[in-house]
Structures are given as structure tokens and as C-alpha cells.
């Protein structure tokens, strides 16, 4: 034993001596364990440094990995658990059917058309060229077109997801294809939803259209996904959220290559709201017919509820073009049309209101200490500096009180009285009557019109308000601009006691008051009575009739200054023709406002249009007696192809079974 010790101790290198004391004792402690070696004199002793090294390795190993596992699993564990979860759960939205739109009698204005398409899943297809050729043979689409479509979508669609090859297949064709589909694995018939507008031009401006969401819309609304349809204009745009419904949600479990393992329905999709408009398709059609080929607008509104029964603007366009994706040629044609068919003239065009404005001015005078018996003598004009501002009747009207100024539409009366009242009283009154601000109708891009004031002019032109400005403003010329709908809302307010109502497109919407005409009841009654007189022998006699109580006021708004008149006027230079009317028969009252763009004289052009509208309304007892709303027909979807129908029935059977519902 001792010799052995000497043997290992003697040649120890200097760096080893550092460890000499410790390990020596350790070795002695180990000694008794190896009892069997006791008697052998040359027992081998492993190098102490080496033994320490090995034990050190094990210690380092243990500490390294326990601390590393602690770091990964305990310290960062929750984060990694979330990442693992995200790895294998995907969420998929199920689109909800968009709500349909009906007219007041339940006739479909915007429908969800079921379209059948043929799609393929690349993973499941054995012979791609043959499959594409077969698709072409079935559908009659040229092979090159099918191949082109395949090439285009190949990079956008994952190999295990359906790639849409052909859309809009005929139902009978789908049935035939389905019966042969078993021989072509990877091909499948898919059901697509498309929006269609059966009334085309008649409702284009009211309904607007839907199209696939663009990037800006996708960025703005997190609920939207690529390829979703959103309203782009009209009521499809403004009530998009309600029509859209709420998407359902699937939690889908996938494996590493993205294949679906199973799905859990987290949220049921909710059908979009079905809207019933206040508009009556037949009245709308009658208004369109009454306008003939003119560019202009017709509004039919109920003064007590604010409901719009017709809202026509011409010329119009076919909104189905947009829903299907408009071609460049059609788009250019619409955009370059000199009569702007895309413009909704009811709310997006502003015109000088002309003499229709006098309905508002008269009320303003009455509320500003002008007696209806105050006379103004009209000599056909009024002097302003060196110039003479004329009345429309150069020969003059003679003495005019307020009633006659409306019936005869005498301009000089308004020049004088406006000067007396002053623009500072007129401007706020006009604003309170709803002019110069939007009516709040559920349609996009409504214009405010313009009611000028002293501040407005100094801000806009850096010039003071002149006497001539007041004269112009008093007869609805100059800076004054209004939309036809603002005029209609004001006339309704005259009839309903002063409530400015939001024009309601949706029938089920409640009556919404957006302001009040700041006038006494007697004032309103005076003006209504003046309109009645005007319709019965005055300038608006075109609408006067025996079978109903009628009132009206015409307007002829100048587009070109009087001075340059004399030569023949082109269409663009002709006056705008206005007429604002009301009619009452049995228990129904309607307000009809007609505006014919560059039509000429209000009484001559707009009057007969309004007359035709009343002819339609009052000759049909349906529109003069308040009727109960028609019951809505129950929704029966378009037929599904047989195999899908069977699958749907199986699915329903399963659901019934799961929830143990009675049949």
C-alpha cells in the first residue's frame, strides 16, 4: 500500500499538486470499499485529477440541463405553450348570408343569388391536364381559359384548399356534372353567393351595390376578410353592418402540413338583417315614367312619418354591372356620359332653388314682424346703384301682399321685405329650416347645399355683404344652393306642424326629428294655404285637380345670368325647373318634389311631371287609404344539387340527434 502511494505521488506535475491534499483523503475514504484488493501490493490507483474531472463533468451536466429546462419550461413555459397552441389551432370565419332588401310590399330589390361553381383540390388530383380538359368539356368553357384560370390562382391557393375554376354554372349542368363527379377525385361543386338587383336601373342609386372589399376597407374593418363583399354605395354602403350579419367562427385543428384534423363551431353565423324599404316599387316606376327622358329627380315623401315612397334620379345605371365586377368599357361609358348617370341628383346635386325658396322666405318674414297685409308695389324691378334688378315679370305685378306674392311669385316683394328683415335674420332662419346641412338620409355622400351669410361671404370672398346679395338670397338665386331632398323635407315640415324629419328609406325605422322650423303654427298654415291658392290658379296650376286637396310652388332657377340671354340656349344653359307640391286625398297626404335639370320653366316642365305622379297616386285607391303592411313571404332558398341536398339533410339529422330535438 505504501509503495503504491509513493509511486503515484512522486512524479506528480506541479499543477497537479494543487489538488493533492483533497483527493488524497478522498481516495483513503474510498479504500475500504475495495476490500478485495487489500492484499495485492501493486494495486492500480487511477489518477486523482481524472476522477475529479469526471465528477465535475457530471455536476456541470446536471446543473446546465436542470437550469436550462427550468428556463424553457417554467420561466418561458407559458409563452411557448401559447405558441404551441397557435401552431395547431386556426380560426376560420364562416360568412353569414347578407340580408336581402325588399320594397314596402315585399318585392325583392336586392337578392342573394346562388351560383354554382366547380373547384378542385390540387392535392387530390392525379392527372391535372386530363382533369382540366374534363372541366372544359363539361362546362363548355374553352380549355385555354380554364388553364389560364388555374395558372393564375395556383399560387394564391394552398394545395389542399379548393381552387375555384368555373363560376356561374347552370343548375341542370350541375346535376349532370355531379352524377359523373365520382370518376374525378379532387373536383367538387361549390355553392357561391352573389348579389343581384332584379330592378336594375330603377333602384340603382338607392341600393348602391356590393363588391369585394379593397385593401383600405380590409385595413379599416378587422371583421372583413379577403374576398368578402361589402357595400360600396347606396344603402348597401350605409347600412352595410346591418345587412352583413355576423360571421360564424370555426376553430380548426390542423397538423404541421396544414391539413384539417377537426373543427369546432364556436359561433353560429348570424344572417344579415332583411330590410324592407319604405319605397314602393310601383310608385318609383310611375315617377320614373313621369320624368320621361329628362335628367332630374322626383321625391315622394309622407309628411307625417318622413317615409320616402319614391326617390327617383335620372339618368340611372345598372348596379348589377358593379356587383359582377364592372368591365373597363362599361366603366368608361358611365364615367364619360355627359349627363352623369352615377350622380344621385336627389342628394348629391345642389341647385339654386329659385322661387321655391319663397316658401321659406315668407315664413321668415312672418316670424320677423312682417304682417301678411303689408303691401309692396311691384313695378317690374328695383334700383340697385346704377343697375335695375328685375322681377321675373318685367311689366310688374302692381301692389302685392304676402299671399299674392306667393301665388304670383313676385320677386320685388321679396327684395323689399328681405332688405327690411336683413340677411342676419334670414340666414339663421334658413339654417333652422334645414337648408345648408344634410338631411341625414341613409345614403352616402349627401351634399349640404349652401345658405350664405355675412361671415360666410367675408370668409369665402374676403368681401363685405352687399344689398344685391340680400336681393339674390331672397329669391333663391346667387349663392343659395339646395338639394331637392332639403326642399321636400321643408315642405313636409310645413304640413306636419314644423318637424324637420329624417327622410326614411327603411320602412321599419321610427320617425326621427332632426330639427324644428322656428315658426308659429299660424305661419305654417298661412304658407300651406298660399300653396293651395298657387295650385288652384296660381303659377302651380299644373298640379291642381278636383279629386284632391292640392298645394304647390314652382321655381325656375337661372343657370346663366339674364344679361347674356337673347341667343338660343344650349341644354347646359337652360334653367332648372322646380316644383314643390303637396296633395291630400282621403286619409293620405304626400309631398312630391320634382326637379328637372335644365328643364326650363318650373310650371311648364316640372309641373306636368308632378301632375303625372299625382295621377298615379290618386287614381289608385290603394294609395289613398292607409293599408296594413303586406305579410312577408317566407324565405325559400334556391334548390341545392341533389347530393348536397342529401348531405344537408344528413347534417340536420345529426344536429337533431345531438341536441335531441323533436322532429
Amino acid at each position: 500500500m505504501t509503495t503504491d502511494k509513493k509511486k503515484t505521488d512522486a512524479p506528480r506535475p506541479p499543477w497537479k499538486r494543487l489538488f493533492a491534499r483533497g483527493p488524497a483523503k478522498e481516495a483513503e475514504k474510498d479504500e475500504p470499499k475495495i476490500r478485495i484488493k487489500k492484499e495485492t501490493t501493486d494495486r492500480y490507483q487511477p489518477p486523482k485529477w481524472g476522477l475529479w474531472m469526471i465528477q465535475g463533468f457530471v455536476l456541470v451536466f446536471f446543473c446546465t440541463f436542470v437550469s436550462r429546462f427550468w428556463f424553457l419550461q417554467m420561466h418561458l413555459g407559458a409563452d411557448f405553450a401559447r405558441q404551441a397552441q397557435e401552431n395547431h389551432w386556426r380560426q376560420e370565419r364562416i360568412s353569414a348570408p347578407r340580408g336581402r332588401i325588399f320594397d314596402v310590399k315585399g318585392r325583392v330589390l336586392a337578392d342573394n343569388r346562388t351560383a354554382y361553381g366547380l373547384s378542385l383540390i390540387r392535392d387530390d388530383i392525379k392527372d391535372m391536364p386530363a382533369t382540366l380538359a374534363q372541366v372544359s368539356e363539361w362546362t363548355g368553357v374553352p380549355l385555354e381559359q380554364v388553364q389560364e384560370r388555374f395558372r393564375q390562382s395556383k399560387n394564391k391557393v394552398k394545395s389542399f384548399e379548393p381552387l375555384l375554376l368555373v363560376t356561374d354554372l347552370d343548375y341542370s349542368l350541375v346535376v349532370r356534372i355531379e352524377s359523373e363527379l365520382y370518376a374525378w377525385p379532387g373536383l367538387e361543386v361549390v355553392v357561391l353567393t352573389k348579389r343581384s338587383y332584379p330592378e336594375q336601373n330603377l333602384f340603382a342609386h338607392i341600393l348602391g351595390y356590393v363588391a369585394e372589399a379593397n385593401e383600405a376597407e380590409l385595413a379599416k374593418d378587422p371583421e372583413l376578410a379577403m374576398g368578402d363583399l361589402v357595400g360600396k354605395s347606396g344603402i348597401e354602403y350605409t347600412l352595410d353592418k346591418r345587412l352583413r350579419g355576423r360571421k360564424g367562427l370555426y376553430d380548426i385543428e390542423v397538423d404541421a402540413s396544414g391539413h384539417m384534423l377537426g373543427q369546432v363551431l364556436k359561433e353560429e353565423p348570424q344572417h344579415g338583417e332583411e330590410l324592407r324599404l319604405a319605397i314602393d316599387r310601383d310608385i318609383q316606376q310611375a315617377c320614373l315614367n313621369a320624368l320621361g327622358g329628362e335628367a332630374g329627380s322626383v321625391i315622394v315623401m309622407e309628411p307625417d312619418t318622413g317615409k320616402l315612397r319614391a326617390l327617383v334620379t335620372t339618368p340611372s345605371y345598372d348596379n348589377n354591372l358593379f356587383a359582377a365586377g364592372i368591365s373597363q368599357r362599361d366603366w368608361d361609358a358611365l364615367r364619360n356620359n355627359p349627363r352623369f348617370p352615377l350622380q344621385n341628383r336627389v342628394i348629391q346635386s345642389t341647385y339654386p332653388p329659385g322661387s321655391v325658396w319663397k316658401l321659406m322666405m315668407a315664413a321668415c318674414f312672418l316670424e320677423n314682424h312682417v304682417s301678411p297685409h303689408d303691401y309692396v308695389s311691384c313695378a317690374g324691378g328695383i334700383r340697385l346703384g346704377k343697375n335695375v334688378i328685375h322681377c321675373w315679370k318685367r311689366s310688374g305685378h302692381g301692389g302685392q301682399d304676402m299671399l299674392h306674392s306667393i301665388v304670383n311669385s313676385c320677386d320685388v316683394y321679396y327684395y323689399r321685405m328681405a332688405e327690411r328683415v336683413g340677411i342676419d335674420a334670414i340666414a339663421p332662419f334658413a339654417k333652422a329650416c334645414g337648408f345648408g346641412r344634410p338631411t341625414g338620409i341613409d345614403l352616402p355622400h349627401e351634399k349640404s347645399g349652401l345658405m350664405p351669410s355675412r361671415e360666410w361671404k367675408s370668409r369665402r370672398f374676403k368681401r363685405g355683404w352687399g344689398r344685391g346679395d340680400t336681393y339674390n338670397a331672397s329669391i333663391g338665386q346667387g349663392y343659395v344652393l339646395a338639394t331637392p331632398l332639403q326642399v321636400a323635407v321643408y315642405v313636409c315640415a310645413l304640413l306636419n306642424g314644423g318637424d324637420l324629419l329624417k327622410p326614411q328609406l327603411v320602412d321599419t325605422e321610427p320617425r326621427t326629428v332632426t330639427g324644428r322650423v322656428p315658426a308659429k303654427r299660424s305661419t305654417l298654415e298661412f304658407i300651406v294655404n298660399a300653396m293651395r291658392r298657387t295650385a288652384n290658379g296660381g303659377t302651380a296650376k299644373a298640379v291642381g285637380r278636383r279629386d284632391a286637396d292640392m298645394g304647390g310652388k314652382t321655381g325656375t332657377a337661372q343657370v346663366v345670368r339674364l344679361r347674356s340671354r337673347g341667343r338660343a340656349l344650349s341644354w347646359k344653359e337652360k334653367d332648372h325647373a322646380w316644383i314643390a307640391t303637396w296633395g291630400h286625398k282621403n286619409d293620405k297626404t304626400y309631398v312630391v318634389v320634382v326637379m328637372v335639370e335644365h328643364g326650363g320653366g318650373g310650371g311648364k316642365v316640372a309641373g306636368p311631371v308632378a301632375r303625372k305622379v299625382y295621377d298615379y297616386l290618386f287614381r289608385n285607391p290603394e294609395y289613398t287609404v292607409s293599408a296594413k303592411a303586406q305579410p312577408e313571404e317566407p324565405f325559400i332558398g334556391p334548390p341545392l344539387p341533389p347530393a348536397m341536398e342529401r348531405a344537408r339533410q344528413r347534417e340536420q339529422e345529426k344536429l337533431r340527434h345531438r341536441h335531441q330535438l323533436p322532429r
Partner: protein
Amino acid sequence: MEKKPLVTYINWGLVFFALALFLVGEMNLYSASGARLGTGSTLSNFYQKQAVWGLCGLASMLAVMSFDYRKLKAVAWPFYIVTLVLLLLVPLIGTTVYGAKRWISLGAMSIQPSELAKISVFLLGARLLAKDGEPLGWKGFAGAAAMGLVPVAFIVKQPDLGTAIMIVLILGCMILFHGIKGSIFKICVLAVPAVLYVMWNFGMHDYQRQRILTFLDPSADPLGSGYHILQSRIAIGSGQLWGKGFTEGTQSQLRFLPERHSDFAVAVFGEEWGFVGCTCLVTLFCFFLLSIFTTVAQAKDRFGSLLCAGVFFYFFWEIFINMGMVVGIMPVVGIPLPFISYGGSATIVNFIFIGIVLNVAMRRSLTNFDYD
């Protein structure tokens, strides 16, 4: 002196821990073999094959235990020479797999000379170092180093960086274990950065360099070469304290984890058994290594002790590098985890190494020394 049967002196601790690890590996492999698909789940037969390999390994282990380990001294040189010849033949008649020429086809089976080199360097290293107990001087060190670096040079060229690193580590640790003059040790320590620099610029292929760069920043390339590292870290980390439960790991069952039955098997384990399971596994490995250490300390002679130390370093570095790679503290090198990863020849080699340790342990009581 009374004669006891050799079995009396067997290292039962090593037998126990090796079998325990093998069973843990077998269980983990069962889980790693499964995969859930949309239509149901599949179970490949890795765990069954591994059981068969395990039985073959146990038989080889018994065979290695049957003869006196000192006879290996005589085999060391011939075995080394044969290995060198085979390594020389690889570039000439070898077959290329995954862009690397590593295999020699011998009709029905093929052999990988680089794997043989591991064993032959380990054997010859033990034989050379066992000559005397003095710390290695310049001459001895140069001889041992040359003996190791010749096959390493061939292997790096194949290329098979993992095996080359393993050989360098095993031989280097054996030399350190034996003892080396202080001056040589210091020079070697200083030389390491220079060698690494030369290796990086001249000795490595682009994909190997890429792996090390990816290891340093796996998030730079999350779908390419960083995918393995990220997914294995997600798998292990998401196990948290108690794990997701046996065969419940989503990362492995849904095939997000690559190489989950071979190199990344321990990630499956970590995901399903959590921090508690991982700590137990690390502890089990420590006991396993310490039971090898017992025989290192008890061995009858220097050759036996060096053999066992070589086995220790072999297992130590395999475990350290593989687990280090899976938990993201080592670059991705194709080294399997002993007993846990699936692999036929690796299992047999592992059991042969354990057989050598048991052989040394059994014969520690023999007194007739013919050698030395």
C-alpha cells in the same frame, strides 16, 4: 484467496440505470411513433424495431462480457489499421447519402467506417495511454494526437463533422483524464481558437456553417434551418411543469416537431412530461454516468480504467451534445441521444460499450497479471 464467481463483482447499478433509460426511451418512442391525422391516428413501428435492436444490443453486451477485456489490447492495433483502410476506401467506393459519402456497401448491408473509427480510436487510445502512469510528455502526446487526427482528417472530408468532433472530444478527454504535462496543456488551450478559426474557414461546408449561424440566432430563419430549433424549443417549453401527458403532445403528435423519433426524441419527452419529467431524466442520466465512474475508480489496471473513462466520455458527450442541441444551447449536429433516440446500430454500440464497462467491473478481482 477465496474464489468468487465473476458475476459477484458486476456493476449492478450500471445495468439497472442502462435498462431504465432504455425503457424510458422505448416508452417515449411509442409516443413519438404516433401521429394524429384527420381520419384517425397512425402508429409507425419504430418502438417495436427498437425493442428488437435492444435485444440484439443485450446479446452483444453479453458477448463482450464473455472474454477478458485485456485481450482487447492485442486487437487494438489491427482494428485501427483495418479502420484506416476502410476510411481510405470511402472516397473511392463509398455511396453518397444526403450529399455526404459515408457508407461502404457490402452487398446486403452497409457499414459506416466513421462509426468504426470512433471505437478503434477509443481502443487504441486506451492501449497507448495505459503504457505508464506518467503524465504525457511531448512524445507521448504527439503520438496519441497523431493516432487520433489521421482518421479525423478523413472523416471531416466525408463530411461527417459530428463524428469527427466526437472522436476529438473522447480522445482529448481520455488524455486529460490520464494526465498531461502542464506546459502542453497550456499550449493546447491557447491553440484552440486558432484551430477553430482554421476549421471555420477551411474545414467546414456551407451547410455546417449555416447550422452554427442558425444556432446563434434561430429566429432569423424560422421556416428554414431555424425551424428545427424553434419547434423543439416550443415543444419543450410548452410542457411547462407537469407536461401535456403521455401521447398528448401536440407538437409531436401533429408532426410540427421534425426528427421526433431520432435526434429530437427528448423534445417529445419534454413536451409530454414537463419540467418534472425532464429533471428526472437528467438525474437518471447523472446516475447512469456516475455508475460508469464507479468502475473507472475500481478498475484493476490502468487499461481497464482508461477503457471505462473512454466509455464515460463517449456517453457524456453524446448526451450533452444531443440534449444541448434540443434545448438550444448547442448547434444542430446529427448525434443521437443514447437509449432515447431510435437507431439500430447506435443501440448495439451503446450496449457494447456498457458490456466493456461491465467486463472491467467483473474482472476487477482477478490477480493474475500477465501484462505490464
